[in-house]
């Protein structure tokens, strides 16, 4: 069976500090991978998606970046955090065109 992991679960960082969130998927190969941000417990904003190693598409221009160094690893980064980067970050994976997305447990980021 497939499993998706995210860490850390919670993170408190000062403004201007760097960020690295990691997501890994087990039990599948060549998944599509996604990073979302959820603000105030409501709507999901797609930040990045990847259909293969080294292939990253950005949905929203901002001070975040993503990388996919391995087939089942997806990393979300920032060089300098802003207060507005606070939120709940979710990683997800899917297979194929019609496959549903499966979500990780999320990372709660608070920028102070």
């Amino acid at each position, binding site marked *: 069976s497939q499993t998706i992991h*995210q860490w850390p679960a919670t993170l408190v960082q000062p403004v201007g500090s760097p960020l690295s969130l990691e997501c890994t998927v087990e039990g599948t190969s060549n998944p*599509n991978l*996604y990073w979302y941000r959820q603000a105030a*417990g*409501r*709507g*999901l904003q*797609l930040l990045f*998606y990847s*259909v293969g190693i080294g292939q990253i*598409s950005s949905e929203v221009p901002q001070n975040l970046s993503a990388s996919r160094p391995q087939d089942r690893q997806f990393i979300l980064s920032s060089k300098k955090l802003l207060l507005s980067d606070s939120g*709940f970050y*979710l990683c*997800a994976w*899917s297979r*194929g*065109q*019609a*496959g*549903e*997305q*499966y*979500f*990780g*447990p*999320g990372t*709660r980021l608070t920028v102070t």
Partner: protein
Amino acid sequence: AQSVAQPEDQVNVAEGNPLTVKCTYSVSGNPYLFWYVQYPNRGLQFLLKYITGDNLVKGSYGFEAEFNKSQTSFHLKKPSALVSDSALYFCAVRPYSSNTGKLIFGQGTTLQVKP
């Protein structure tokens, strides 16, 4: 523009009563449709999907959804609500033409089931 609408921010229902959470969509071509549930401080859990075939789709935890092409709707239903069904529900759509797997999500509906 392609979009998903969940017209109700919150739905309140008594335990044991039937529940409906509404979703309408606007996409070009045939859609793939999905419902997800989110409990506080958790990731989204997949409930069910419509790809093709029977308009009534059955999913996890006794939920079902009815695809109505003429009304471009995909409402989530359950015959008898439980207090434990209280959560945030998201409808999502993927255009048939998409090859990236990207989903378009609605804004979510909070379901409150009272004992």
